[in-house]
């Protein structure tokens, strides 16, 4: 399958480690960006036990990112699960070239990360809150 953006092995390893890391409390996230010059993916940073609102503050307002989130979900029957969800962080103020690249590489990234649920966040920090994530996962 032809790809516009390559995913280096280091990223694949980070994603696997992130997926299988034992979670005790809170939500964790790994943020990946695309390097436009080299056309590869790069890990920006990882967060452990971060709230969704803090994550919204950390993410850039004008650049697209892929965020693999392990979200602490409290079910109404008392269980707590940590589902993996892919946040497609794509604010509309981003540069058009980056947006296109980001959109084209999404499917490939989703398959590599092996995540079934994708949440699109197009309007920046206002669109990323705990309520929105919970409602999408329920």
């Amino acid at each position: 399958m032809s790809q516009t953006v390559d995913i280096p092995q280091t990223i694949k390893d980070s994603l696997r480690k992130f997926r299988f890391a034992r979670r005790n409390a809170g939500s964790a996230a790994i943020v990946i960006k695309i390097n436009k010059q080299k056309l590869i993916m790069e890990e920006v940073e990882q967060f452990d036990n971060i709230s969704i609102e803090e994550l919204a503050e950390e993410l850039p307002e004008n650049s697209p990112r892929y965020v693999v989130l392990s979200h602490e979900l409290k079910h109404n029957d008392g269980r707590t699960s940590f589902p993996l969800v892919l946040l497609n962080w794509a604010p509309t103020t981003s540069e058009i070239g980056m947006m296109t690249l980001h959109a084209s590489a999404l499917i490939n990234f989703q398959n590599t990360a092996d995540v079934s649920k994708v949440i699109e966040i197009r309007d920046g920090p206002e669109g990323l809150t705990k309520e929105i994530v919970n409602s999408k996962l329920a």
Partner: protein
Amino acid sequence: MALPEVHNIAQVPITSHAFSGDRSQLAVSLNSNDVQIYSRSGTDFVPTETLSEHDKLITSIDWAPNSNRIVTASQDRNAYVWQETPDPETGKLVWKPTLVLLRINRSATYVRWSPNEDKFAVASGARAISICSFDAENNWWVAKHLKKPIRSTVLSVDWHPNNVLLAAGSADMKARVFSAFIKEVDQRPAPTVWGSKLPFNTVCGEYTSPAGGWVHTVGFSPSGDVLAFASHDSSVSIVYPGGPAIYNIRMTSLPLVTLTWTSEDSIVAAGHDCRPLVFTGSEAGWQETGTLDDSKSGETSRAGAAGASSVGRLKAGAFATFRDADTRGQSSISGSSPSADTKLLTVHQNTITNARPYEIHGDQVTRVSTTGVDGILAIWDVNAVTALTARVGGIQLR
């Protein structure tokens, strides 16, 4: 009385003008898609370059004095930032445009650089103001919108000296002060009379004049503590936030469409009356003090139509006199010149659309430049104020 410096730039309306930082160059939009750059040569302005990139009429131009960048806004819903760079082949300095996508779906109407020249604000007909800042990571200008609660076209904007607050005058008859704080670009500003802790799109104040009317122009005073706006009800309002009241000066003349502060207590404004007016005041009150256009010393020679009179029974004499009085309303019976004299006594022959500070000494603006629909650029001495009541009208000096 210092006479104004008058330049006949073009025979078409000048939509917008902006001088370079050292005032040696002038960028104008002559009601067209291109920017014309004029340079001073001796006492005149000669055209040197044309910047073509826009697809539709350029509505506004601003020239940043320190970073020497020009921003142009047009009816084609885009803005371009022009930077002087050396051309790779010839080595000369050429103006290179960078497109800024404003993400508006109507024309842009007005543009101004912020005081630190790292952002600019574009007013538009899309009921929004685009605040554009440069994102170095992606090498492109990002536009954020100030939308609520604007209900109609924004006609003009003005920045506060702290680089964060923005005043906007709109066709929904309100003048507002917004916070245009951009996280990556600005530091948290110190509290001002307009408020403190102001996230993006906070409305710090919303003002209207008593009789309503589109707010054509807004301006912050040099300190930023006072706001002035002129609206279509022929009035000028001066707002002291938290202070005593809003001072509203109603005039009997035609509305003003542009204003600029010349010092903390005086404003020069101009509009459909074709002459710049001066207003002075303080927290205690404001009044109109006079005009910069001493029209006695305007054009005195009635050049012209004498040469057009030609031979023929129908064109001269009593026949022509009565015909002119009847069909054209020109009475030459009292002995004034029979030539059709539609020239105004003021320097500008049509609406003045733009008034900008030209020369600044310390914190006072000493000279103001104006352009208008008549294609004339005039540079006025701010201190040459003639009180309107003292003017003796109609005396011709021959």
